């Protein structure tokens, strides 16, 4: 069961994870990560822009790599685009597998790659002005963990 989506509207992770779990009968474990827009000091909103011809195919290619690398029964990967307010979910990745190590590692792998190798550009609204977010060194370190 594979469910990859870009959403332009607010979503509630529980409404995705329940059906996803049900759709993978016989699983041993499900690992789920939900990222939310943090209440950073002075940040009123976060905007994610993307490039349609790359973003969704990029998420599918990432899912392909996750299925190759881990023994998975199902993978759910949902990402918001557009303008988000603090507290709103921005990303939800859920992996179902027979064994917990595959489920946890697949989520870890997808999150590391989604954060720094996927085609999203972010800017924050602070005091009425938009500011672009630059790439972080941390994300490159996280990615380097998988280069073996």
């Amino acid at each position, binding site marked *: 069961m594979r469910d990859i989506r870009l959403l332009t509207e607010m979503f509630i992770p529980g409404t995705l994870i329940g059906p996803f779990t049900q759709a993978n009968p016989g699983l041993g474990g499900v690992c789920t990560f939900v*990222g939310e827009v943090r209440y950073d000091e002075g940040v009123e909103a976060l905007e994610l*822009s993307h*490039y349609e*011809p*790359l973003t969704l*195919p990029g998420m599918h290619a990432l899912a392909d790599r996750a299925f190759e690398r881990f023994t998975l029964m199902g993978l759910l990967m949902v990402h918001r685009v557009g303008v988000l307010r603090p507290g709103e979910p921005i990303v939800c990745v859920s992996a179902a597998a027979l064994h917990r190590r595959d489920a946890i590692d697949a989520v870890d792998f997808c999150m590391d790659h989604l*954060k*720094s*190798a*996927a*085609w*999203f*550009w*972010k*800017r924050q609204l602070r005091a009425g002005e938009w500011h*672009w*977010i*630059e*790439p*972080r060194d*941390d*994300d490159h370190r996280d990615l380097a963990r998988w280069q073996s």
Partner: protein
Amino acid sequence: MIRFVYLGKLADAAGKSESQIASSSGDLDWPDILALLDDHVREGLADAVRDKRVKVALNGEVLADREGIVARHGDEVAFLPPVSGG
């Protein structure tokens, strides 16, 4: 026509998120494109695009060698700055 798409902060540098370029002059190579960005879109945009970290996609495919690009009538060229951290 050739369509140029500016992503992330390059949209700020361009002052817009995309441009239509008449391709009456024929195919565009990398020097042609940089000249058009400065002359027909906004002064300084070519420098922003020259940044080594900016990738270029032609019709939805990221080019391994952006300087080898040849854009033809009907093509879409996207300029992709580094993606944002978390």
